[in-house]
């Protein structure tokens, strides 16, 4: 099938006197797509590829043979593709410098041991510009490192992206947003856009709005507020009215410049031009405006000149002297604060879990020295962040406040730190009066720094709410992976800012900052009855069958025994709660899932951290991915790989990267994925691994159970007999789909951790160890207590539900 486009190109190459098929003319020029013209030109002087026997192999692929190879190509480390992809020989002598350069201007795609791939994107170039790289520099350095002549298309792309970036800034002043630029032309272009014009607040409107708001607040708080100084929106009107009369404009601009210099505090005087102009936009429309500016190719740079911010109160905070920053952490911060350390840029920092993201956030706060708001995904993280702040910095207890469901304090002074969760800030439903007060207070502050933890997990709509209600000069997103299966990465880019830095996993591992990992996939054959059932079942049941595969249980049991004996601390992950409970009960190990009480969670994790011999292995559901303050582990076993989530895989890997033993000679953390052979788990697992494989991780495969478990060991494991297996299958079949997902079949009455604590408590009281019989009594007493209270609780719940139901029924 001939591509009609190609036909057109072909026509154009014909001499003028040749008869052009006029019917194609409309296709050429009738379209609104102005790009066609340009492409035609390219085709005419089209790229000349090598023509030989294998050219046909690359017809639908990328044939870059038209790029001339430079004479000195052997001493250069880069290939640059026509589509912005860059290939780097990491083993070349000057590779390190090239790498530094590339990570600044491009996205890493894959970075295994020898050959890396990167990609130039608009965002990556934007990030480059925002850390101060200039177009000329980028092109020059790239040319110097490249083996091939840089393709024209790439040069144009770089120019297009970088020349328009950095021209416009979004500035937050006194809780008001301004679009600021040294280039009046640019501002004019922006204001001509409908969306932006809508958002634009004239001076009058602005004053009015603020007055109304201030009054509202005043009445609510029962206070009167001092008059806010009125800062006129400068020159916007004059810009709009100015005709092409250059002289006139010039004059007016000069006048405006004078005015602005007098009134404008945040003067940007590093650039050539002397004047700065801006116009205000309405706070609720900030996101719209940002998006629109990006679309117009003028992405807004958000910079905060914190040193010269005399309006917002300073915060006394420094890093404690004992704290040391690692070089890659410094690199992150240098991207954020620039070489002069004068302004703070907003953006996202990507570091593998366990590499010390928290410390980067804390250091940033110590640099900005203004009020800082930290948002986490759950209450436990809040505790953790607060604790870390206290540990690594000089902040005093009264100056740091936690805002959670249980805690609604404020910091005592004019400035301080608040740590909260996304849900608290963005929750739109009914809330208590206290919470409402707290929120108002937060939203009325002008935060110097907003730290957004675990940015990859939070849905975009939650962010939106947060960012439209909270006013922050600098936003710092922290994450381990920028990969999301729902592809909402771009949203983050313009909601928070460009990616400032992404660490190289292998490099960090090589230098001992994170543990080296031995990753293995174990294939567990399905027994014939399980497999027969699998073939006949629907998808939901299939997943359950895959997880409950008896050989998988055996493999898990064997691995746990083995690794415990080797001194490992093991976490077993299961997305499926039914399986989680079954495995845990069978292997007599503690487990935590969504319904596990806060107290029990804390206890179990504490014992795990302490290394108690009964708590060397714990089983976790999805909660382990985010909601838990997990201590380091050295071994991780995944028993269900249900979806192809690369982020989840990377995150789980992170649980074993912090291992303290990582600097021991030859130490490896272990990562096991148990997969049921010949089922869809194989495909899911392959999908999940992609991100990690591109970071350089290698996954070994053990294809036969017999390669893993010595035959003499098998009899000692569960489910060795067909009868047992059959029983298991029946149990699985009986489990309803609901049960398989969320509920558990029996209530938990053997809270191991709780019992242990009760025992320890008793022993403390008694002043020594108890006899076996006494110990048993204590544990039994505790258990009975648990049963009783749980029964009461479920009764209460039942009646409550009943009442609600009654209520609804009435409503009809």
């Amino acid at each position, binding site marked *: 099938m001939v591509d009609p486009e190609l036909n057109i190109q072909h026509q154009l190459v014909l001499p003028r006197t040749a008869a052009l098929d006029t019917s194609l003319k409309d296709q050429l020029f009738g379209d609104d797509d102005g790009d066609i013209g340009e492409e035609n030109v390219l085709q005419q002087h089209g790229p000349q590829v090598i023509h030989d026997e294998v050219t046909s192999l690359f017809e639908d692929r990328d044939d870059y043979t038209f790029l001339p190879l430079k004479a000195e190509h052997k001493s250069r480390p880069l290939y640059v593709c026509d589509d912005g992809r860059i290939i780097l020989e990491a083993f070349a002598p000057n590779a390190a410098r090239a790498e530094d350069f590339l990570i600044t201007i491009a996205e890493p795609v894959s970075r295994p041991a020898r050959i890396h791939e990167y990609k130039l994107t608009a965002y990556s170039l934007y990030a480059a510009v925002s850390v101060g790289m200039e177009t000329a520099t980028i092109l020059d350095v790239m040319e110097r490192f490249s083996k091939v002549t840089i393709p024209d298309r790439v040069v144009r792309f770089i120019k297009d992206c970088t020349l328009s970036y950095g021209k416009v800034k979004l500035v937050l002043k006194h809780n008001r947003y301004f679009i600021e630029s040294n280039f009046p032309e640019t501002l004019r272009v922006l204001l001509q856009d409908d969306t932006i014009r809508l958002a634009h607040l004239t001076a009058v409107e602005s004053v009015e709005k603020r007055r109304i708001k201030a009054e509202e607040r005043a009445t609510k708080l029962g206070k009167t507020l001092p008059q806010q100084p009125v800062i006129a929106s400068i020159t916007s009107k004059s810009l709009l009215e100015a005709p092409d009369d250059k002289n006139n404009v010039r004059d007016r601009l000069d006048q405006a410049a004078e005015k602005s210099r007098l009134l404008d505090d945040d003067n940007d005087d590093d650039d050539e031009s002397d004047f700065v102009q801006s116009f205000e936009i309405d706070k609720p429309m900030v996101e719209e405006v940002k998006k629109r500016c990006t679309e117009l190719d003028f992405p807004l740079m958000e910079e905060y000149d914190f040193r010269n911010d005399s309006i917002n109160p300073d915060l006394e905070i420094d890093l404690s002297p004992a704290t040391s920053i690692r070089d890659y952490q410094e690199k992150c911060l240098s991207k954020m604060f620039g070489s002069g350390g004068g302004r703070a840029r907003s953006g996202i920092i990507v570091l593998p879990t366990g590499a010390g993201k928290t410390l980067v956030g804390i250091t940033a706060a110590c640099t900005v020295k203004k009020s800082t708001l930290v948002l986490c995904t759950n209450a436990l993280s809040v505790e953790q962040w607060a604790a870390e702040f206290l540990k690594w910095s000089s902040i005093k207890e009264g100056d740091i406040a936690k805002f959670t469901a249980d805690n609604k304090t404020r910091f005592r002074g004019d400035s301080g730190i608040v740590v909260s969760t996304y849900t608290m800030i963005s929750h739109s439903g009914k809330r208590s009066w206290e919470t409402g007060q707290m929120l108002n207070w937060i939203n009325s502050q002008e935060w110097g720094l907003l730290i957004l933890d675990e940015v990859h997990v939070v849905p975009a709509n939650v962010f939106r709410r947060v960012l439209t209600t909270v006013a922050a000069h600098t936003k710092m997103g922290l994450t381990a992976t920028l990969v999301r299966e*729902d592809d909402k990465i771009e949203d983050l880019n313009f909601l928070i800012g460009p990616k400032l830095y992404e660490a190289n996993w292998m490099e960090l591992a090589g230098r001992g900052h994170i543990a080296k990992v031995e990753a293995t996939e174990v294939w567990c054959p*399905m027994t014939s009855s399980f*497999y027969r059932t699998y*073939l006949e079942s629907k998808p939901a049941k299939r*997943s359950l069958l895959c997880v409950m595969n008896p050989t998988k249980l055996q493999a898990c049991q064997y691995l746990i025994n083995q690794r415990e004996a080797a001194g490992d601390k093991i976490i077993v992950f299961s997305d499926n709660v039914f399986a989680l409970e079954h495995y845990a009960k069978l292997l007599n190990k503690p487990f935590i899932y969504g319904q596990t009480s806060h107290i029990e969670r804390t206890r179990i994790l504490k014992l795990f951290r302490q290394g108690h011999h009964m708590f060397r292995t714990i089983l976790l559901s*999805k909660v382990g991915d985010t*909601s838990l303050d997990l201590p380091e582990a050295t071994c991780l076993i995944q028993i269900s790989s249900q979806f192809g989530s690369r982020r989840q895989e990377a995150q789980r890997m992170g649980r074993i990267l912090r291992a303290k033993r990582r600097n021991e000679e030859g130490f490896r953390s272990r990562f096991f994925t148990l997969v049921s052979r010949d089922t869809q788990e194989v495909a899911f697992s392959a999908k999940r691994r992609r991100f990690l494989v591109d970071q350089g991780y290698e996954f070994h495969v053990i294809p036969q159970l017999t390669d893993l478990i010595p035959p003499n060991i098998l009899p000692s494991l569960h489910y060795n007999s067909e009868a047992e297996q059959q029983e298991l299958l029946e149990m699985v079949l009986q489990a309803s789909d609901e049960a398989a997902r969320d509920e558990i079949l029996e209530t938990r009455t053997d809270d191991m951790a709780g019992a242990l604590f009760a025992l320890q408590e008793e022993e403390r009281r008694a002043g020594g160890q108890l006899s076996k019989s006494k110990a048993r009594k204590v544990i039994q007493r505790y258990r009975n207590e648990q049963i009783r209270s749980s029964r009461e609780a479920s009764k209460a719940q039942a009646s409550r539900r009943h009442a609600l139901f009654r209520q609804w029924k009435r409503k009809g």
Partner: protein
Amino acid sequence: MVQAVRGVLLQMDAAIKQIILEINDQSPQPFILEDLDDEHVFVQEESVDLVRAKLDEILEKNTYKVDEDVTMAKVQQTVASPAA
């Protein structure tokens, strides 16, 4: 009288055997001459190539074709409730 049957002995692991049985059930001309045990069947000589091809097809379907709807649904679930 002792019966002698000519054919091909197929050896495989238990899971595969289940598939073979299914292929046999769905085949217009069943080819299994004798079902021996969990890991062996005795089949007609001419059927071996067909069995291989069909087996490949089914394995491909059940192992490598993941249910994309399931994936996306689960992803939405995860994303929607971060604090689950």
